């Protein structure tokens, strides 16, 4: 047991850290967060049937009365270290694609915070409960920096000059503030049936800015010309409501089954889009500032899970969920996806749990590219990448005081996929800004070796991301 002072410090630490996101690739969904129940997170987020965690009410509203507790509060934090490596194809002298050369590597740490609470009462065999929780549903935090360097000095073992800096800075989350109601009916000591409903208000304020800034070195290298900086900003809100209904059934001492259904929700996305490219040579400033208001679709989700509690020398719980996400609600180009979650909890010694889990979750990345059709008319090429995120998790718990438990869950996930180069090379072709027939040797040494054209889907980036995350939750129940 920890002293009161230590406990307070621990709570402050957890509250101070907060939960997060990481990918710059998915501009539509950002990053959808897994279960915030740290115990379930360590078990691969397989928590549709969850009779222990306060945050289980966010995974399935019927878990509220399934828990058979009168009150509960939980605070959770989620810290994530994301590594994003972008590479271009690498060719051997035999002309074949050999591997990838990383040109940009970004590591960021994000955090976020969530909280929940509930109260329940049992009237003989009938249980009723109400709960609240507030958590990030989708996170758009993103940080990306890419140096554009020229080809000078590399044979002298020194760094080449930086001629431009590309950045993407995203922030904001769509938060889910929910009211949960659940009703349970007890049929026996270990048999009960629970139904719940979750009504959530979704609200998010998101900003995403993409900039290209030429360095002083580049601007000074060709003093008679101006190299134009670029700024592109999206600032918008997402708001609306979402329903979820769920059922949890404890069949006997061994088995529990559960399911949730989250119908498609149409939210409102409203904001402004701002674009500005500086003037250069005889081209004026290109500037746009438009407002937009559009539907934002959250797809239908159906999820089933079970929990198996066998007799084992170490007390053991095995959970497994299968989720069906109808991404086709959002766009015809999306395929529906099936996600799998599984985890086990063993009480190793002195009732200390050891949890491991696995999940395979699919993401859909939607990107567009400007191209021309056979008549040379500009068109937009759409492409969807379905990307698999495998994840391994582990976790444990510490009982801090009677009814006070600190749960820790760790996760490691990675994904590998192709993406369009976010900053096309053609922008750094100074011929555009000087009107010269060749690139300036002052910026691009030996300009004959520089081929500044924008790569499309015929030669995309290969992106490799990995994330290490810690989910810590402190809960009080009685």
């Amino acid at each position, binding site marked *: 047991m920890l002293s009161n002072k230590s406990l307070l410090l621990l709570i402050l630490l957890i509250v101070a850290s907060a939960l997060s996101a990481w990918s710059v690739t998915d501009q539509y969904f950002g990053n959808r967060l897994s279960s915030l129940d740290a115990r379930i997170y360590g078990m691969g987020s397989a928590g549709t049937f969850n009779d222990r965690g306060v945050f289980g009410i966010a995974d399935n509203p019927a878990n509220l009365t399934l828990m058979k507790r009168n009150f509960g509060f939980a605070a959770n934090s989620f810290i994530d270290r994301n590594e994003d490596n972008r590479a271009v194809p690498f060719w051997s002298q035999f002309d074949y694609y*050999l*591997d990838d050369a990383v040109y940009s590597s970004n590591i960021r740490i994000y955090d976020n915070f969530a909280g929940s609470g509930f109260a329940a009462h049992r009237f003989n065999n009938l249980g009723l409960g109400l709960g609240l929780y507030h958590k990030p549903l989708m996170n758009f935090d993103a940080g990306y920096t890419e140096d554009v360097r020229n080809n000078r000095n590399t*044979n002298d073992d020194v760094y080449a000059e930086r001629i431009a800096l590309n950045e993407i800075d995203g922030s904001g989350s769509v938060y889910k503030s929910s009211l949960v109601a659940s009703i349970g009916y007890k049929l026996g000591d270990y048999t009960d049936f629970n139904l719940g409903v979750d009504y959530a208000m979704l609200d998010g304020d998101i900003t995403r800015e993409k900039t290209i800034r030429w360095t002083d070195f580049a601007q000074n290298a060709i003093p008679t010309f101006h190299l134009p900086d670029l700024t592109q900003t999206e600032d918008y809100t997402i708001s609306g409501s979402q329903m979820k209904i769920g059922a949890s059934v404890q069949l006997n*001492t061994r088995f529990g089954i559960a399911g949730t259904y989250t119908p498609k929700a149409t939210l409102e996305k409203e904001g402004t889009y701002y674009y500005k490219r500086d003037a250069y040579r005889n081209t004026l400033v290109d500037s746009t500032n438009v407002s937009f208001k559009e539907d934002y679709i959250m797809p239908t989700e159906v999820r089933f899970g079970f929990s198996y509690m066998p007799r*084992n020398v170490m007390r053991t719980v095995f959970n497994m969920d299968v989720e069906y996400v109808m991404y086709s609600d959002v766009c015809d180009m999306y395929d529906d996806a099936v996600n799998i979650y*599984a985890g086990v909890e063993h009480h190793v010694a002195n009732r200390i749990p050891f949890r*491991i889990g696995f999940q395979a979750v699919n993401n859909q990345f939607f990107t567009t590219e400007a191209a021309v059709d056979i008549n040379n008319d500009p068109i937009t090429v759409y492409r969807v990448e379905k990307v698999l995120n495998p994840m391994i998790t582990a976790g444990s718990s510490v009982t801090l005081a009677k009814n006070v438990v600190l749960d820790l869950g760790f996760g*490691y996930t990675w994904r590998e*996929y192709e993406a369009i180069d976010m900053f096309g090379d053609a922008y750094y072709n100074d011929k555009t800004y000087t009107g010269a027939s060749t690139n300036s040797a002052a910026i691009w040494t030996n300009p004959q070796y520089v081929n500044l054209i924008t790569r499309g889907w015929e030669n995309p980036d290969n992106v490799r991301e990995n994330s290490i995350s810690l989910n810590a939750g402190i809960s009080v129940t009685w």
Partner: protein
Amino acid sequence: MKKFLLLLLALICMGLLAAKVDLNTATLAELQQLPISAEQAKDIFEYREYVKIFSSIFELRDIPSIDQKTLLRIRPLVVVSLYQENNDVTLRREVVRDLLERLDSNEGSMEGMADVWEDYLMTPQNLNRMHFDDFMGLPNVSGVDAVGILRRVAQGDTIADARDLRGSPGLSYYGYTNLRSYVYYNEPPVKNRLMWDAKISYNTRYFEEGQRDMLREDFTRDYTTGVVPQLKGLSYWGYFGLDKIDPDIMLKMRMRYGNNFKMGIMNYSGKGESGLMTTNTKDFIEDSKWFAGYENTQMPGLDNTRLKVYLGNYRVTYGEGLVMENTDYYSARKTGFGFSKRILGITPDLSKTQEFALKGGAMEYTHPLFGFAAFVSQDDKDALVYINKDGSPVKRDEFGNDVFTETDGRQYYKEGINKVYNYDNGAPVYATKNKVFNYINSTIRWDNDELMEAESRFNTELGAAGAFAVPYINLAARKDVLREKLWGTHVQINPFIGTKIGMTTYTALYDNAHFVVPGYDEMLRTLLRTSSDQEKLRKAMNGEISTLYSTQTDSYSRDYRRVVGFDGQTVIGNTSIQGEYAELSVLGDDIKIGDDPKAYLASAYTQFDNLYFLTLFRHYDVDFDNPYSNSFSEHERFDGTMFDGNMYSLTNSSIADLYLNGNQSQPEQGVYFETRYKFNNYFTVGRSYIDILERLTDHRRTVRFQSELEFRPLFQVSLRLRYKNQVNRFDDMADRGISKTNEYTLAARTFLSNRDFLELEYRYNTVYAPPYLSITNTAAEGNNNGLAAMTLMSGDYIAANYTHNFSQSLKIQGSFLYWFAHGISHWDWEDMEIDFMGERGSKAWVAITSRISQNLYMNIKFRNKTYQDKEIQIRRYNVSNDPILYGDPIYLQRVEHSENTIRFSLDYRF
């Protein structure tokens, strides 16, 4: 009165006893009647329900909320009854649990045999009624062991138990220890009942280096002029987006009633293939394997006869695997002894084998004195087919072949490279059949539509160049293109105990295809993209390719392939002698010996209690092309040919799959000698062998030697020293084909405690060999300056492996290793798979095995492997390509890879 009082006392005692609460059967409500809190009652109930059945009242103290005071208070009020929760199946599973786990860990290398052995572990065979071949199919049981037992039984003796078995004359210690778990004596440990297993496996593996290189090879414009489009989409890799994480998924379910009725289904979709969610029902069924079977070991009529009947997918193995042992997977030095076994006869097949899978019906009827088996199969096979360039107005058939229509309305394939003649009358064959080069076991089984779309894109690029000798894709893999009808039989006579003579034959009918393999020169023109490569790769070992079996040649035209063979075995004293002779019918008579391409193998296995010798001789003709053979050899077919290492020269890099996923032995002749000797409890010479062989295509001679010494001063501690040496072309030191390999391994193993195992291993290798001069030098006379170019390459490897058992239900294994291997490669046996590692890198993996319940197992493994593998030349970015002004503008770089792999499996056994 006294009696009355005693009776009253007894009744009171009984009453008190009757009122006591039985901790093992009480309901929660009954426990709550005890003078304890509701929480404590619940804790007792849940301990019994979720941890264990009580065997003593004092086990209540294992529950944290029950203190000594509480125990003393309720002690007079409770009893613990004898309670048996296990049935015969779960008890049996406990007995053989270690063996089951070991079989699971070897399943990948066992090619479906683990299923058969698992069945026999759970529902053993009656030792006193087993046939000779039944013994031969069990791991580490030899013919000498089998004869020792069968002779006892034949003399009317009945082996009553394991101790009785151990006393059988001739039965070795190893034979005994491995046999005893697979047999019963009087009563079967498990009565006939319904049992079922279900397994899900999910594995995000990476392609092996050779496969990756093959898939990444571009169909580019003329590289001789330096015009390089550098587009990823011009390779299979880029076109199909293989950078993604894409898992192998396997679903398997088996049901059986004792050993009598069996059925099962398995679906496996590999990385890059249509998965469960994207495939349609028809393809799912076609790509799934299934079986239903009936076995009876007590057929009416003759005593001790047995019948097996299987429908669906099955495996057939006879003799030494020369005529028939159907598998997609190659396994070097498969002796048929020790743990390198064959299960003889017909067995159900839910292995990952797709190409050489047999699907149809099979039956086997056996008696101690004779046996008979027949099998028929009809299955569509993947094949490497000839195709023409896609061009208007040529019509293409469903496989991508150009089709022309004659005035009489009949269709035929375009003449020229695809010209197929009828050798009876010289007329072209009309378009009812495909022209096939060979079977192919593709790394990725794409659908034909997908392949044709991709090839159309590649052809555009190839056609734009015009510099290639073959400016279009003329050979390509096609899924399920070859309709194969196969039938075969095996007859066997067993005149004496331990002696048998058998004959096996099969005929594969190809009624929609011709196998056509051109002669050597035309073959080079067909397979190699540029004319310069055609000269450069004029290697003797390419004879393995040009001698592949054709159904259309200058001499005959037919539509089948037939293999006939004889096998035999006899046991004399403590020596078992066995062998097989097989011929592929080409020009000769089907049953006349010596007039067709042949293969033969003979071996002698001599066994003592703690020592054995195996001597084996084999010879496989170059033109003995039997895709259903899987016999002993040192190398797989096409090793060293243009398919191995020259994939960039091929008209279609995916042809290299013939080598990369080959299953046949290379044509070779050689003598192999193997032994193992346990001196005493301290010293053992582990499996040691020497193999002296000659590759028959180019007469390259090789000698390979390996020996292992184990010193075990204590049971918990052992030291192992292993040495391996291989010399290729040892007979001609001046030849550039020579290479010498040495490998030294030292391993220390210790059980730190009952739950912890630690192993440290160090390995050092050297390879003395010529570089691949074919890349830099034209293989013309005078350029063959191998002696001047010999290179000594070395590498080493250090590893630490650790296992911790938290309990019987939770085990963690982990390993970390680092290797350096300039120009050579290492191998590492992980928890249940082998991994090959080139160049240098490090690897760490952890595998967690959780036994969730007596029936349910979960396994999660994560591996990170970071390594450098390929040396490439890069021109310095900002210097001119003028070596006089700027010095050498080229420097060498290595490519680094980082791979994360996860494997997850759930296995439910009932």
